């Protein structure tokens, strides 16, 4: 292909589109891994406070969960934004829904991040016998 003039570059939509794909690929590993560990190999019968606490004792799992949280959340939020974009046309409604989306998105992301980063396992309760 010949290129005559400057190509348009960037823009939010290209970025968003590409992000959906990149995050998707990474999420395949992260989310499926997470599901496998938490819901298949272990089951919710085993999972309790101690389980999680022990897991977050390791920086690896903290990072894992943090990355997963951010990617999945931003991926999902942008997905929802696309859906809103499709179906909500009235100006006012759009503003309301998109603002709500941003607010809820921000608050929950902050909550998730906070707990992953600041969680301190009560040392006494860290028990042996966990992976």
């Amino acid at each position, binding site marked *: 292909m010949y290129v005559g003039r400057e190509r348009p570059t960037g823009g939010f939509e290209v970025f968003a589109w590409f992000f959906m794909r990149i995050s998707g690929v990474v999420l395949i590993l992260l989310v499926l891994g997470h599901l496998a560990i938490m819901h298949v190999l272990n089951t919710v019968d085993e999972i309790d406070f101690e389980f999680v606490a022990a897991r977050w004792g390791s920086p690896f799992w903290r990072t894992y969960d943090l990355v997963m949280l951010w990617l999945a959340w931003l991926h999902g939020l942008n997905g929802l934004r696309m859906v809103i*974009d499709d179906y909500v046309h009235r100006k006012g409604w759009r503003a309301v829904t998109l603002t709500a989306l941003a607010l809820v998105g921000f608050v929950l992301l902050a909550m998730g991040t906070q707990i992953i980063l600041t969680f301190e396992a009560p040392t006494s309760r860290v028990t042996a016998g966990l992976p």
Partner: protein
Amino acid sequence: MRVMVKIKRFNPGRDREPYWAEYEVDVEPVDRVLDALEYVKWHLDGTLAFRRSCAHGICGSDAMLINGRNRLACKVLVKELGARITVEPLRGFPVIKDLVVDMEGFFAKYRAIKPYLIHDEPPPETEWRQSPEERARFDDTTKCILCAACTTSCPSFWANGAYIGPAAIVNAHRFIFDSRDRGAAERLAVLNTGLGVWRCRTIFNCVEACPRGIDVTRAIAEVKRALLFSSL
């Protein structure tokens, strides 16, 4: 062969709401849906309106929703459909009357992507050279007859009528990938928005609807990639 043709009718000058009308028609199995419509028009109910011209799938006049899918009435044989044929106007355009829809918005989007060769240098004495490979690069999208079957089959377009739609993207592709063209940047700029290529969700209804067998989604994907790679 006797078939029941059910047509969604609406005459804004007279009717408040669209309604269904049913007609019994005798056809040959090798007749087209267009023949059935013409039979209705000519022998049963002269008030029916639809567009048609070439009757062999080249002029793009008679795209409509036939048994739940966008088709050209002149390119579906009744034997493919069985004894009940349902015909509706294309979705997402205002209805002028019966099966005739207002295509002005559709053509406005076509015009928006600058559907003409852009090349500022003076042309040579004879032809611009183009290798068969370069020519093949955009062959698929030169076939478009602007029938709008693709755009009006796209759920993304139904959801938001401001979406530029596959037909316009196909026609942009036809020029963007023509080795003689120098206007790719301008066209890509038009398509690089939330109402441009990025609203395509690769749903593929367009491909199934296209009577010219154009791989519409592929064309759209190529445009997306062109935009992505020039942004990286």
